[in-house]
């Protein structure tokens, strides 16, 4: 099982690579077009800023587009947000990958930002990633923006000043607004579920 974590930004990408390795996967950090061929699954990690990540991803864009639907892609935090059409992070709208409809907007000023720490994830019944995770479990979040969207891809939500999607799943795309690699026991279940999805 080869998991390729796309190395598009500076930050703690070690933890996600390491978490997959501990679960028995052959996880590597890469930013080469060739990495997609041998990958069984791809991860967009939750580091860096939206504009920087999109501009770096531009060179790999066609390869990424090519695997949507055939190889599972896990987007974590910023990674989830990249699935959507555009983001307001950085002021002016920046185009995203556009795989899912919706835009990324700031959390309301009525709450402290970043949304930092452990919060509950609800309505997790229909999510593949959350299989075996009790409803209302706590996961670790660290973000100031969220994906404003609705409908079928939203598999679970979290409340923080606003109700936002904390898990999305649609046609081979899997996204978590929280960091499973930092979310203790329940986070580990999410990563195991993703590996199980990638294996079938």
């Amino acid at each position: 099982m080869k998991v390729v974590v796309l190395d598009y930004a500076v930050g703690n990408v070690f933890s996600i690579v390491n978490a997959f390795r501990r679960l028995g996967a052959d996880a590597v950090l890469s930013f080469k077009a060739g990495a997609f061929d041998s990958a069984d699954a791809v991860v967009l990690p939750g580091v860096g800023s939206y504009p920087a990540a999109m501009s770096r991803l531009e060179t790999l864009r066609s390869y990424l587009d090519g695997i949507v639907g055939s190889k599972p892609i896990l987007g974590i935090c910023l990674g989830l947000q990249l699935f959507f059409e555009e983001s307001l992070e950085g002021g002016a709208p920046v185009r995203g990958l556009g795989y899912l409809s919706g835009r990324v907007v700031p959390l309301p000023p009525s709450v402290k930002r970043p949304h930092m720490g452990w919060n509950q994830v609800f309505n997790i019944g229909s999510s593949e990633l959350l299989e075996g995770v009790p409803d209302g479990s706590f996961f670790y979040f660290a973000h100031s923006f969220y994906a404003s969207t609705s409908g079928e891809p939203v598999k679970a939500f979290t409340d923080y000043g606003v109700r936002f999607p904390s898990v999305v799943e649609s046609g081979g795309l899997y996204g978590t607004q929280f960091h499973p690699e930092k979310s203790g026991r329940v986070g580990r279940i999410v990563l195991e579920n993703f590996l199980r999805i990638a294996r079938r």
Partner: protein
Amino acid sequence: MLAKRIIPCLDVKDGRVVKGIKFRNLRDAGDPVEQAAIYEEQGADELVFLDISASIDKRRTVVELVRRVAEVLFIPFTVGGGIRTVEDIYSVLRAGADKVSINTAAVQSPKLVEEASAEFGSQCIVVAIDAARLEAESWEVYIYSGTRPTGLNAVEWARKVEELGAGEILLTSIDADGTQRGYDVELTRRVSESVSIPVIASGGAGTPFHVYQVLTEGRADAALMASVLHYGMFTVRGLKKYLRERGVPVRTA
């Protein structure tokens, strides 16, 4: 609901824990990996490693420590102590830390906070503020481990670092630190009400009530503690049970 966080702090020197758990039968009391794993298992929400070494190859030993801890830990952790440059931050994050905490360098070079949060994201930049009470309603910021006054007002400095892009404030009361007679609730409330980023209260924890007090009256988003946990005066698990029974939202692991 967003949970209030309980954060044990471990002091490390040259890659070894020098202020950490004392009450359990540890195979190696100086091993940061073993100590981190115990706190994660107890239900700690995050960990802070404060590096107090002054050696020339400090950065190398810190990076090595971070790498080893990141290999076993499934909860976030912050590294502080002697972080002075963007390169320091880069190497610590790259090795697997989730956040860095900047103290003296932030005061001496506020631009560092600005650059680091732009480059790595606000969520991984914590500014540590050590403050001592001057008079009834005023606190002064100190640097160099609380030894040098800066003339800065703590509440104003907190607002400033938020503006510079800090994602979180780790606020330590120099007066309360080490006394085990309770946090400086007033200082914490003042700072927490003046900024819109999370505030971690530190210094003075002696009983579960003190923690309750700073998380409610003090409006802290998280409470950091060291000796009370290291000496087993109470455990993270016991503390969380106490808080939950009093209506404070905490994570049940």
